[in-house]
């Protein structure tokens, strides 16, 4: 029973982590390797507003979301736009920014055990004989809420539809008057905000440490590769696969093998089905 419940919780956590990365890649084909650092940065910004400046929790979160959104936009507007279309350069440029943010934080003194975000609500409930704290339950519901929200946004709003058009055929979108640079900025803002939101939802479960940025990036990439790059449905499915695999490893092998599962999943996917679970269309294209 605890495997099922913690498997679901872990899977939703993975999906929340990966969503921002999958979204940006799906829309503008930019692999945003600064994803993990935005996740951690959001934690520290919220912490600063909350602890140092004494803002209420709610407003700290709102301000943090706005700040990471702006960071995402600036990252695209001033750095990624110059290397657009060159996959390797995009990776190097965004990873360099990510490294600068993470190591800058470390250099700036944000290390040690004293950085924690409070949970949204204290307490726990027993589900099927397994105690689960409120923070994890809130996280699962928030995750589901984010998915539904994104689905509505991308299917029923003008900007969301334009984003999906661009994700499928950038040049055809251009012919219909959709500005591809503007849409790429929008996708980066959304991606950064999702990374930030993931941080705010997940970081209260432990300490805010710089190293989490690297782990989150690897996990997000693992989920996206297993699910098929650019496929959002695939990303969710892969999050559940890897999430349950991780929990099973923790229960039967030991928790220090957790990261191995994610990396192994990347390797196995690349060997067995390079286009990922849901990369059907792309697989066809590869064959042609």
């Amino acid at each position: 029973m605890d495997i099922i419940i913690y498997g679901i919780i872990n899977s939703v956590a993975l999906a929340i982590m990966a969503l921002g990365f999958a979204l940006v890649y799906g829309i503008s084909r930019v692999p945003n390797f600064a994803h993990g650092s935005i996740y951690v940065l959001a934690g520290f910004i919220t912490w600063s507003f909350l602890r140092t400046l004494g803002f209420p929790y709610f407003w700290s979160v709102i301000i943090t979301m706005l700040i990471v959104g702006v960071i995402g936009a600036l990252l695209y507007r001033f750095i990624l736009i110059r290397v657009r279309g060159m996959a390797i350069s995009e990776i190097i440029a965004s990873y360099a920014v990510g490294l600068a943010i993470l190591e800058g934080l470390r250099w700036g003194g944000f290390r040690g055990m004293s950085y924690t975000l409070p949970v949204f609500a204290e307490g726990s409930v027993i589900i099927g004989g397994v105690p689960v704290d409120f923070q994890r339950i809130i996280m699962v519901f928030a995750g589901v809420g984010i998915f539904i929200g994104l689905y509505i946004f991308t299917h029923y709003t003008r900007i969301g539809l334009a984003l999906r058009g661009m994700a499928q055929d950038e040049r055809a979108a251009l012919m219909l008057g959709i500005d591809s640079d503007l849409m790429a900025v929008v996708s980066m803002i959304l991606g950064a905000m999702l990374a930030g939101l993931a941080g705010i939802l997940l970081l209260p479960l432990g300490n805010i440490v710089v190293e989490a940025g690297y782990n989150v990036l690897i996990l997000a990439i693992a989920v996206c590769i297993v699910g098929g790059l650019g496929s959002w449905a695939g990303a969710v499915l892969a999050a559940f696969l890897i999430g349950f695999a991780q929990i099973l490893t923790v229960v039967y092998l030991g928790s220090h093998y957790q990261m191995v599962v994610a990396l192994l999943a990347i390797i196995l996917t690349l060997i067995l089905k390079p286009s990922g679970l849901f990369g059907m269309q792309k697989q066809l294209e590869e064959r042609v």
Partner: protein
Amino acid sequence: MLEANGLMVFYENMLALNNVHLRCKKEEIVGVFGANSAGKSTLMYTLSGIMDDIRKKEAMAGGERITVLGEIKYLGREIGALKPSKRAREGIILCPERRRIFRESSVMENLRIGGYLSTAAQASETIDYVFSLFPALKNLRKRIGGFLSGGEQQMLAIGRALMAQPKLLLLDEPLLGLSPLMQATLVRSTRVIRDQRKISLIVTEQYARPVLPIVDYAFILENGTAVLEGNREELMGNPDVRAAYFGVN
């Protein structure tokens, strides 16, 4: 409406368009005919500004150096420097060769993505119009774009372009690879669109015969050069043109 003077496009040193003059008056259907690689698509990309995007992407990837020269006047204004999205906003909409519909979206979604530039009222009015123009699409509303036949895809592509509220619609080889019956339907609809929506159209084709009855004026491209122009009767009177583009002797 649109006037292009001395258009020259180079891919590296290869001349794709050589000093092309083209004009299209208000509510006129202009045909551009030419064989494969005569420069029809290059011309359409240049007019719609997509060439600007292609040029940038090539430069970024270190590919071909593309040079575009000449002036394009649209509604009395020089638009050669405008971004493609700006030109679309001004009303120049390209319905591209090979259709390029959004393959993972349904018919309805394709149309709604096409409605990016229109207001909610315009969008719902145009959707109704597209379904009245192409009743076949109405029953396929939920069908995924990639599962449509070639003719259905072409109807969808034209409908999607109409959703962007064009004033000048560029149709790049709309009849490519379609059955004669579908070709006839599309040619008829093209004229209906001009008459009912009061817009101008530029249509390119390899084979002039199916399109000729509806064009007001036509240009013939050969190796990137506009070798001949004239109205329907003038072109039909030219024996070389008759043999090469209409298949009659």
